[in-house]
């Protein structure tokens, strides 16, 4: 009688493992850059090709780096949230215009609103690789000392903003 429970127990363990497996998102790969300094770069500004932008200029403030592109469909989904965050002045948002044509990127911002203080133009995606970008959009939270504190892969949602980004930004600003 006791023996017949063994296969059942094994089955139950398997079910638990598979169940957990179902809730995991294989597309979310933990970034090795978390709690490391944001990689340095020097890119031209999207709107002013003669001017450069570099993350070390942003030392001393908490800021978001949002990787976006005009060809990116999911970016459109999160865009209103970014625009709203910018309108409320919650945190300075900078854009990394990833593998995009300058004109297309600028037109996209004209059409959908521009939440970015500045966007860097990463035409060949080299800076994207340095940041471990593999699925646009991605959003990095960078603290006052230039350390990456959080990374959102894929579109941000109202839930992510409420539960993760806002508390983290508040905490980092106070720290």
């Amino acid at each position, binding site marked *: 009688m006791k023996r017949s429970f063994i296969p059942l127990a094994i089955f139950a363990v398997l079910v638990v493992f598979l169940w957990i497996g179902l809730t995991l998102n294989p*597309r979310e*790969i933990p970034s*090795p850059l978390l709690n490391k300094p944001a990689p340095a770069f020097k890119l031209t500004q999207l709107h002013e090709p003669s001017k450069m932008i570099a993350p070390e200029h942003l030392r001393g403030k908490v800021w978001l780096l949002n990787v976006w592109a005009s060809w990116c469909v999911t970016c459109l989904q999160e865009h209103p949230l970014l625009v709203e965050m910018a309108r409320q002045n919650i945190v300075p948002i900078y854009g990394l215009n990833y593998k995009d044509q300058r004109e297309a990127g600028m037109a996209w911002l004209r059409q959908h609103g521009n939440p970015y203080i500045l966007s860097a133009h990463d035409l060949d*995606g080299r800076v994207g*690789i*340095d940041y471990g970008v*593999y*699925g646009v959009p991605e959003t990095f939270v960078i603290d006052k000392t230039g350390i990456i504190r959080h990374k959102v892969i894929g579109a941000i949602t109202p839930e992510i903003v409420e539960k993760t980004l806002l508390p983290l930004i508040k905490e980092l600003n106070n720290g």
Partner: protein
Amino acid sequence: MAKNLFLATLLMLLFPLAHAGEAIPTSDDPVLEKRVLEVSENLRCLVCQNQTIADSNAELAVDLRNQVREKLKAGQSEDEIMKYMVARYGDFVLFNPQVKSSTWLLWFGPLLMLAGGGWILIISLRNRRKLQQQTSVLSAEEHVQAASLLAEKNDGQKNIKDAS
């Protein structure tokens, strides 16, 4: 019908051609391209995760292959390139996971399962043999009983034969 079949066959025949055309080397140096491919085969494409960046034609995979090419051209070793990739994309980018404390279960788990299975097999075989030995031995009383049963059966058959 015959036309469809012809078309299907044609398409099937053409498929390898189309496939072969996909991975066009972008450098004229065949030795370098071979090295690029060798290194790329050990790197996972993060967009289509079951492919290496050598197999994948996702844009990111193409970019990463270009990075590998550039770094090889600059004289970097495979080890250095792997480190560069891991620093950006984490261990996940390695198609063959490294052997370290967090991957022991991954590497040696199957062996553990095999050992466990073998152990269960041995135990159950031993139990079965014990059971067989126990049941095959009859007590003296049972022997007598069996003999009488067999005798009865033989008698019965004899009687039937006699009657016919």
